[in-house]
């Protein structure tokens, strides 16, 4: 799909900063300005920010994806899921005349579930985006970050696991070409016992592209029975491409299961030769292996529409 075109899927489309009132399913979408009047307990008066409150009331389950176009210079999206609410959010960064600064806050009340997909397919602009997630007990957050556009993109996700039995699965693929620079910083804080988290990121860098992955898991002293997994693997397709990866664990609790790992490598000559020896052209063989490399995070996407959307935009 070309840059700038609308994603082709059955969804509610939202332009950042516009008020939409209440949707038939019960979802409420307001501009931050309107939200500050109606829900002062949730939103403080915004200062020079374009943004939205997306509020999913108690037990409201919105299966149809909500697509948000984040194209103002300063965006602020606040997503609040009340008890036992469900939402599926796609943030589409597709075009803008300016550099973009974006903050997305996601608050999940007990039993709420949120699936989150970011598609970053900007043309030349610079992007700095933060996603801050706060999860209460028995919540599930699943996020996939696809980064392939922008000359310089910095993406930060931080998740606070504040309630027991919360689960967070963060994954993503970044593809750099030309002189692109992609940075991802991923922080997961296990503040209480019995939570699960995973980080699964793959990077593919060609030409002179540069990638950075800073992943951190912090397990506080009382957060026993934590399970945390972290994996970042990277593929360099050119001898000029560069990758810096830093998977870190800080564990202050006993009785936890934590794993982490990172690799930086190249396409395997033996695999390429095997495919070529069966008549497959070099470029196609390379594509097959690159697609294979991205398989693991993509198959981890549990929402079928998200997965499809991702595959179409890889």
């Amino acid at each position, binding site marked *: 799909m070309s840059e700038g075109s609308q994603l082709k899927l059955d969804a509610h489309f939202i332009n950042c900063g516009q008020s939409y009132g209440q949707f038939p399913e019960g979802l409420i979408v307001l501009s931050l300005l309107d939200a500050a009047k109606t829900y002062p307990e949730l939103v403080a008066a915004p200062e020079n920010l374009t943004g939205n409150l997306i509020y999913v009331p108690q037990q409201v389950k919105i299966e149809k994806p909500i697509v948000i176009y984040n194209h103002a210079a300063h965006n602020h999206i606040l997503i609040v899921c009340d008890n036992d609410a469900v939402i599926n959010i796609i943030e589409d960064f597709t075009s803008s005349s300016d550099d973009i600064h974006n903050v997305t806050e996601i608050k999940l009340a007990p039993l709420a579930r949120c699936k989150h997909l970011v598609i970053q397919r900007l043309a030349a602009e610079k992007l700095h985006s933060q996603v801050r997630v706060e999860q209460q007990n028995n919540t599930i957050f699943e996020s996939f970050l696809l980064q392939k556009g922008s000359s310089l993109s910095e993406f930060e996700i931080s998740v606070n696991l504040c309630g027991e039995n919360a689960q967070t699965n963060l994954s993503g693929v970044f593809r750099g070409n030309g002189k692109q620079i992609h940075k991802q910083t991923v922080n997961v804080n296990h503040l209480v016992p019995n939570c699960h988290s995973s980080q699964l990121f793959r990077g593919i860098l060609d030409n002179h592209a540069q990638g950075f992955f800073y992943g951190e898991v912090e397990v506080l002293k009382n957060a026993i029975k934590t399970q945390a997994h972290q994996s970042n693997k990277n593929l360099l397709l050119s001898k000029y491409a560069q990758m810096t990866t830093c998977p870190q664990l800080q564990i202050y609790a006993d009785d936890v299961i934590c794993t982490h790992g990172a690799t930086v490598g190249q396409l395997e000559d033996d695999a390429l030769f095997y495919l070529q*020896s*069966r008549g*497959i052209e070099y470029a196609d063989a390379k594509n097959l292996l690159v697609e294979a490399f991205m398989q693991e995070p993509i198959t981890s996407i549990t929402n079928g529409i998200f997965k499809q959307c991702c595959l179409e935009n890889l």
Partner: protein
Amino acid sequence: MLIVEDLYANIGSQEILKGINLTIGAGEVHAIMGPNGSGKSTLSKILVGHPAYNITRGKITFNGEDLSGFSPEERAQLGLFLSFQYPVEIPGVTNINFLRAAVNAVRKAQGRQTLDAIDFLSFIREKCSFIAMDESFLYRNINEGFSGGEKKRNEMVQMLALEPTLAILDETDSGLDIDALKTIAEGVNKLRNPHNAMIVVTHYQRLLNYIEPDYVHVLAGGRIIKSGDKSLALELEEKGYGWLESLEKV
């Protein structure tokens, strides 16, 4: 069909082939036997264009084309096929997608009709049945977690699907039990016709009971030191390679 003339080749500083001459005509099956390290696998890989080896002298002609400068994929498209001694595992690529990409790439290059997903499925199912490979293997990643025998079966499915004019089987019998060997040999024999040819690289006479060769060559020290008909294989089985190597020295 295939003419190898005075072929010398090395990998790094090590010379492996030291003057190979071999002519293969349509409809023929040639067995290449020889001790470990004699250059059998090197010859097989060089024929299909493995980039790690350098040809320092001689040439390879296939159906009138000088193969020097041909990429591995161009050679496959011309009708050359190597059944690998150690097939590569490729996680993340399903066998069926790979097979379809390969079959259609070769067909396209040969100016033949490509197969859509539905036609391909019935096409490939038939090939699986010829060598008794369970269809579930089509949906697994290429060779990932396959046993030695399953990998060899998968090589044979690829061979039957690509319909090569010259198939090289590099120790396809190693790691196979006797029943699997019979099934695979039956599959291989389905490919035999007056228009194509086969090179069977093996250590043992056993496979040649099922795939009968017209010619047997013994490769030692990077050269073919003796050629004969299938009775040579039986003689080797009885006397070992030492017999020929000592004759060589005299």
